[in-house]
């Protein structure tokens, strides 16, 4: 088991550096220079001043050297200084990352809390009108783009019937620890982000439960004379949850990347917003840091998923 984990971790290392190399190359070789953008329209700058700026940002070096410099600093735990925000990149990531994680976890929770019971109910009343209704909701949840749902949420539940705030994480002036206010702001974005998850989980649960139901131990449970309710909810459901838990890693990864769009609809101050502003100004220290953090999260969640699979199914370990 530990050999498997070690191997997966080792395999992740080249992937990780591959990601940073490609991002850096794409970003720095595409047209547009951070210093040109900075000084565009600033009158009476001398060529020497522009050159000095370029030197101050380390942009006077060839691109491969710039990458190596970045890599060297990164290996020393230094993400560098943001061109745009005039402060350490770590500070910017530090303020954005918890917000993105908070949103992703809330969405995951919603997906589980809503998706699983929906699937169980659908399985129990399979073939009924209720089952069909749930299927329609699930297909709809999959088909509806998150940004559209988010916009409709704002239009209907924030503007027309002002139940929820249009944007942000907290009411201005509210304390950092005002949990009810935070949750109230979280409803729209978390629901939007969890939409596909709810759909996924309800479909997955339904299939799994129907699979499990045909197995011997369920027949035994029924034969014992247990009520259908308890056969389903205790015996079948518990076993059907297994693939769901092993799949968590993948879902988390999906949520983190999906958060970028939801963040922009609900003005959520997370990683997506940060990366967007930085990319526009070619602030590569921030862009690289965002890529590194989110790809680390992705890789870790994939490794977790693989480990979970291997625990559930020993054949995977080889």
């Amino acid at each position, binding site marked *: 088991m530990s050999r498997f984990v070690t191997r997966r971790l080792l395999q992740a290392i080249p992937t990780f550096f591959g990601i940073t190399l490609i991002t850096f190359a794409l970003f720095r070789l595409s047209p547009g220079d951070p210093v040109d953008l900075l000084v565009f329209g600033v009158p009476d700058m001398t060529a020497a001043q522009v050159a000095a700026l370029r030197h101050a940002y380390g942009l006077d070096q060839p691109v491969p050297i710039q990458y190596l410099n970045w890599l060297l600093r990164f290996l020393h735990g230094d993400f560098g200084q943001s061109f745009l925000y005039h402060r350490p990149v770590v500070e910017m990531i530090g303020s954005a990352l918890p917000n993105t994680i908070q949103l992703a976890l809330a969405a995951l929770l919603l997906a589980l809390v809503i998706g699983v019971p929906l699937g169980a109910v659908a399985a129990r009343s399979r073939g009924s009108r209720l089952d069909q209704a749930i299927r329609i909701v699930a297909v709809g949840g999959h088909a509806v783009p998150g940004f559209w749902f988010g916009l409709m949420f704002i239009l209907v539940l924030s503007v027309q019937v002002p139940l929820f705030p249009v944007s942000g994480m907290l009411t*201005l002036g509210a304390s950092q620890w005002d949990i009810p206010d935070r949750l109230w702001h979280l409803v729209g974005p978390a629901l939007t982000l969890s939409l596909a998850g709810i759909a996924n989980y309800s479909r997955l649960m339904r299939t799994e439960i129907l699979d499990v139901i045909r197995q011997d131990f369920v027949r035994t449970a029924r034969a014992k004379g247990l009520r259908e309710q308890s056969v389903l909810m205790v015996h079948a459901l518990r076993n059907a949850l297994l693939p769901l838990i092993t799949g968590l890693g993948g879902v988390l990864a999906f949520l983190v990347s999906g958060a970028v769009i939801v963040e922009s609809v609900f003005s959520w101050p997370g990683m997506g917003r940060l990366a967007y502003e930085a990319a526009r100004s070619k602030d590569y220290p921030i862009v690289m840091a965002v890529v590194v953090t989110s790809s680390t999260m992705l890789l870790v969640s994939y490794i977790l998923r693989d480990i979970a699979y291997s625990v559930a199914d020993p054949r995977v370990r080889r």
Partner: protein
Amino acid sequence: MKVRERVLRSLAMVSVLSLVATACSTGGPAASGAPSGSAGAGAGSPTPGGRVVVGSISDAKVLNPVLSTDVPSADVDQMLYEPLLTVDPKNGQPAPDLAEKWTISPDSKTYTFTLRPGLVWSDGSPFTGEDFKFTAEAVMRSKTSVRKNIFQDIVGATDFGSGKATDISGIQVSGDTITVQFTKAFCPALTDVGGFGIIPKSVFGKYIVPDDPSKNLDNAPENTKPPVSDGPFMFKEWVPNDHITLVANPHYFKGKPLLDEWDYKIVSDSTALAASLKTGEIDVGTVDPEQRDDLKKAGTLDFFDVPGRGYTYIGWNELRGGKEFFQDKTVRQALAYGLNIQEVVQKVLLGEGTKMIAHEPPVSWAYSESGLNPYNYDPKKAQSLLEGDGWKKGSDGVYQKNGQKLAFTLYTNSGNKVRDTFQQVAVEQYKQIGVDVTAKTESFEALVDRLTKSKDPKYGAQGGHDYDAVIIGWSLGTDPDAYSIWDSTQIKGGFDFVGYNDPTVDKALTDGRTMCQLDQRKTAYQTFDKQLNEDQPYNFGFDPNELIFVNKKFQGVAPGPFGGNVGPGLAMWNIEKWWIKK
């Protein structure tokens, strides 16, 4: 679509940053300008208290005028750091601020400012001329400031920057008097140097070491959490990409603001901004034209449409191999007559804009309409001009001369609705008069690259840039100086990327920089505008209005075209007088 729209609006913002950097700080005129409380007259007596929430679709980057370059940062800086001089919010003429008066020497090289008596910082410590001098020194020592252009011509400034001197000898402080000596006459300095937000030496002094030029304030933590200020408000907190909160400065020299708190709230796009204005989550914001009617109907908002200080134009590249017809004034004039700008303004801005026929904004003190050709839309005239110039229509309906077709590519940056539509209309209308235009778009970053680098093989060294024609925009500062855009020395390395070269314009621009009496400058810029109007090196396009909505509960609001930066900043010049009607 949502995400796309966000890109649209924000790119538009990026591209208007341009010249704003020269004119960031604009407090409010104490002696002149709009009468105080005029908008609140008859609305009861001012009561203190409450907060105003200003909306923006982009966060500030750094709260220090030495380093900031973007509009949102400047919006907040304007509330924190006061300059020596401000400008009249209506026409941009210099006006007193921390300095109650100023004089300019006959050779236009020496400026003398007299400070108001009894100025203090928000912590109660005295404000002195040394703070001003220190600000200039901090700029010159910074490695990443792009504001050196403002101070570099002061005697001794570059020597201080490089460490050859331990102070800027051209700035002398004696009691309430600050004397600034320049190496050459440079009139825009009055609003550039005078309008620069001054930072406290007591806070940042420790970062500058007179005999060590390697030390600077570039990474000072106080750049993001400024502890002391002298503007109407003081810093309280900043949650990146969410909000910045400022509170009233009891020591503000115009009196403590009536409002207790000033918030800068970030939302992701103009749709969210409009929705937040409607729900009252945001009190002040600028919106896109298509949101105007909906917000007007809401009934809770006052609407101000303020003429802008910039314009969206088509630049004709005169140094383009194979497209030498752009060097021909007649062709450029024909292209001015052949495009219905009024219709474009109607279509892309729902009428919220003004046709431009020369460079200076019509609201500027330096502008005069007299003697300018309005180039009213006249396709017949466009064609007759071309035909008089020897152009003949070919079988494909496109004009030709000496085997060359009147055909070119028109670039603009992608994701900007206004420019997209402008481009489409231009292609259609030019086709009708017999000019073949191909539309192309690319990212703003890529377009800047194209415009700033000389790559045309035929004219490369002279500043031949790699495009035929381009739609882009200028956002202008408060001073009418336009040297960096139009002087022929700016073809290489500057912003005259159309390659325009005219001795009358060059002379007028130099006069405007060296003969500093207001009426002398006025004459210079009118000569300059007249020549541009005649030559049409751009199709000057249009000047979009700023559409500012303010919650009705606020009294005393009076935005002006020079009241601050673009956007909500234009309303902020008299923020200390705003109050909330209960």
